[in-house]
């Protein structure tokens, strides 16, 4: 094999080592792509919101379509009470989407293919949603773990299952995104390696797979950002509208 398919996930320092106390907060390639993603998001949406013309130009249309897309997603899943959290979910969706999409460009680094990044996002969402739930409903939020219409005999079991499923939310949320990104990129790298190793004779088959996989990965990149955002909406819905 020409190159280790995992080496694309290596984080390396760019520039000098920066240390704050015992912590190393050096500027890395991950930081670079986080900054690239956020800067391009801000650039696009700033351009898209600058002019207010009745007939929007392309970039304004893009910004407004994204806005209505996310706003519709939130109102569909979490209702009108989720309006104050729109900006956060919008930022989250755009950040994950842009990080995923930047990863699709060859020789780039995929920020979201690192478990620590996705886990921090997921943990923040988990803690935030739990805090919102307790603020809105007090200890009544614990009713979330007691579904209605369950026989009393099954209740202890159900409650335990519910608590485990609730606590596993940040893990499932972060691992889903991280694993999808990592697996996709690894696979593309593996197929790319096959193209080289099989050469001009047999390399065409993995090459065609690579082409197909690129399309699939772009779809996955969008889909995972969407799933991440919509799961956040669903968790938020649980916290805002206690249905049980």
């Amino acid at each position, binding site marked *: 094999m020409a190159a280790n398919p995992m080496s694309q*996930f290596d984080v390396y320092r760019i520039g000098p080592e920066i240390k704050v106390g015992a912590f190393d907060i050096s500027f*890395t390639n*991950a930081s670079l792509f986080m900054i690239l993603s*956020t800067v391009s998001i*801000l650039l696009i949406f*700033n351009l898209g919101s600058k002019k*207010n013309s009745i007939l929007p130009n392309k970039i304004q249309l893009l910004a407004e379509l994204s806005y209505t897309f996310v706003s519709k997603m939130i109102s569909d899943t979490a209702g009108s009470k989720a309006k104050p959290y729109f900006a956060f979910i919008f930022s989250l969706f755009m*950040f994950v989407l842009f990080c995923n999409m930047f990863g699709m460009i060859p020789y780039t680094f995929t920020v979201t293919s690192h478990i620590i990044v996705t886990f921090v996002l997921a943990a923040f969402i988990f803690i935030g949603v739990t805090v919102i739930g307790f603020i809105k409903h007090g200890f009544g939020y614990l009713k979330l773990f007691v579904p209605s219409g369950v026989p009393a005999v099954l209740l202890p079991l159900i409650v335990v299952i519910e608590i485990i499923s609730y606590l596993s939310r940040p893990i499932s949320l972060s691992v889903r995104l991280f694993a999808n990104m990592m697996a996709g990129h690894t696979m593309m790298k593996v197929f790319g390696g096959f193209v080289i190793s099989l050469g001009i004779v047999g390399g065409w088959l993995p090459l065609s797979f690579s082409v197909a996989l690129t399309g699939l990965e772009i779809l996955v990149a969008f889909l995972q950002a969407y799933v991440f955002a919509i799961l956040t909406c669903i968790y938020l819905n649980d916290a805002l509208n206690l249905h049980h």
Partner: protein
Amino acid sequence: MVKKIYFQSIFFSFFFIKEAFAAESGGMPQLNPEFWVSQIFWLILTFGIMYLVLSKLILPKISNNLESRKSQILENIEAAEKQREDSDAKLKEYSEIISKSKLEANSIFNQAKEKALKDIGAKREVLDKQIDNEIAEAEKEIDALRKNAPDKINKIAIETSSELLQKLIGAEVNNSSISAIVDDLFKRNGDKYYGN
């Protein structure tokens, strides 16, 4: 098919990961905690700044733009509706005027017709009267003529008879006796000569 290959490839890639674990000391770079703090720090920094800028500056603007467009479109629709109503009213007015003027024209036509008919009737009456008068006068004349005719004829007959008798006899004849004969004839056969 693609899905199957996809998942098989994922499985396959994990095989490579294992190989990588075996081959290199690093293994999965994601599990290397060396840069975790750095990543967390930069994530919070970039995401935080992006969130602040988006929520405070950009998203309100986009929402404003959308809102203003929506309201403008609604306004335009309203204005268009108003104009449509206006034009409908005008159309109604117009058709009313047309129908009114049509009625008016009709009535004027009828009046003129009536007037003309009246005029014609009056003139005809006058004419009829004139004609009647003339006819009556003519009839009167004829009657007078007719009434006078026997006298004149009798006179002529008497004169002719007296002349004839004079020429035949050669002497003066008394007119009165001839007129008595003529009268007598007239009385007997007058109807035959002058009967209507």
